[in-house]
């Protein structure tokens, strides 16, 4: 963690993410009311009206309110996808690595099957079938994101499985599940955790893309949805797409910066 503070770019990224998280948490306080409700005249230019600092869209909905509530969606989806994908990957990878033989073969073929289908197409297909609920979107995106953690967890477990302390635990008579989840998994976890940032950033982008295509929940504000809305006025009112687009870019870049530093600190070799 100390290493994190020594890197200015990671610090900047962290500050942005922290601010976004706070904004997302405090959205109902910062911008009370429904962000989809009509708030004023349509198409107010940004920085011209104190009541609507970022302006309004063609229906008169406040852009800033949309951004604030949209952050909530992006953050929630990003984090939930990471939790689901990392847990699923960790469990499948650990079981595959330890079980070996037939179980491992089946599980790893499954991982490969998911890996060759582009994650976005997978999410697209699932959301169109299951409908645009939050749980549906999260599961759909996680389906394309758990394979990386699963492969990494398996390779770590394979290396740990042959170590002498595992042989010692078996000779002592520990239950295989106890060896898997109490002894091996905690040691396999750090490198897998270092994938968090990539998964979160990818999930935020995928969610935005789904919303952009109109597959998100129409009753929830999302940055992707806002970009899509603004697309129709791209020549006359480009800010409607550009502002949420910038929000997306800043969030994803910040996540990567933090993730990079996190990877280094999680996987650094500790002196023996």
């Amino acid at each position, binding site marked *: 963690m100390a290493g994190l503070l020594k890197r200015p770019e990671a610090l900047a990224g962290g500050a942005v993410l922290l601010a976004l998280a706070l904004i997302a948490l405090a959205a109902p306080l910062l911008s009370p009311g429904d962000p989809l409700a009509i708030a004023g005249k349509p198409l107010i230019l940004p920085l011209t009206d104190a009541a609507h600092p970022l302006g309004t869209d063609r229906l008169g909905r406040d852009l800033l309110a949309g951004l604030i509530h949209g952050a909530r969606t992006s953050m929630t989806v990003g984090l939930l996808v990471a939790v689901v994908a990392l847990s699923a990957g960790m469990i499948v990878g650990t079981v595959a690595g330890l079980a070996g033989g037939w179980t491992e073969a089946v599980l790893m073929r499954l991982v490969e099957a998911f890996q060759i289908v582009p994650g976005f197409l997978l999410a697209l297909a699932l959301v169109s079938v299951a409908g645009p609920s939050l749980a549906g979107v999260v599961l759909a995106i996680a389906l394309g994101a758990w394979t990386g953690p699963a492969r990494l967890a398996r390779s770590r477990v394979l290396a740990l499985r042959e170590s002498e302390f595992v042989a010692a635990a078996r000779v002592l*008579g520990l239950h295989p599940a106890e060896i898997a989840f109490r002894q091996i998994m905690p040691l396999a976890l750090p490198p897998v955790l270092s994938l968090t940032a990539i998964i979160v950033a990818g999930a935020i982008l995928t969610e935005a893309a789904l919303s952009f295509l109109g597959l998100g929940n129409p009753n929830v504000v999302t940055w992707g949805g806002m970009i899509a809305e603004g697309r129709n006025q791209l020549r006359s009112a480009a800010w409607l797409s550009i502002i949420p687009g910038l929000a997306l870019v800043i969030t994803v870049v910040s996540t990567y910066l933090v993730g990079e530093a996190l990877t280094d600190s999680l996987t650094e070799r500790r002196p023996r």
Partner: protein
Amino acid sequence: MSLLTVTDLSKTHHGARRVRALEDVSLSVDAGETLGLVGPSGCGKSTLARMILRLDRPDAGAIRFDGQDWLALRGRDLRRARGGLQMVFQDPAAAFHPRATVQGALAEALRLHSGMPRAAWATRIADLLTQVDLAPDLAPRPLSTLSGGQQQRVAIARAIATGPRLVVLDEALSALDTSIRGRILALLVRLQRDLGLAYLFIGHDLAVVRAISHRIAVMDAGRIVETGPATKVLAHPQADLTRRLIAAIPTLSPPGDLP
């Protein structure tokens, strides 16, 4: 009747090349005795240890331990029975979970095999540490902060914590400095006397194996080539390998005396 009987054990490793790691290996260990198993690296002695410890399965053959068909035990029955047959490995640093403490490692053995209430563990852990000549106040220390000799003593304490009848020691002294090696040898002999333990003592150095073994089995290329009482094997070696192992023991004679 023997405590451990291994009969016609065979194992072939299927890798890039087929390697016959064990070929019809038979041996037995009586209660309270030490059988030394000696041979060069790659002779199959560690493979044999892994079979006896139920870490790998042989292709053919039988193992009886403590009156049971050892290879037939499964699941819960096997995990319970494991308390009777413990082991100490070569590299003490690798034999414990990287984050384990001394008391954590010993408590695990007590939890699984002692049947003691949790409240009694601390006292028992202090006893175990004393038994292997370690200070009881080492208990809360992470194992990674101990010296190699201390770690190996904790490994021995963990092995005896389950109340075993047989302990397999696979090159257990090879990674230690000579002076520490001598003290741990003496400790093993004392524990054998006090607890009635039997040892299968595996090593490549006949000088060490001979010091602690009642009987010696010599292994070469997956086969047992000679077995007998330690004094007899050393005084009248039958197999060519045994003679070479005896000749390879460094003596404290100045240079020039070597063939």
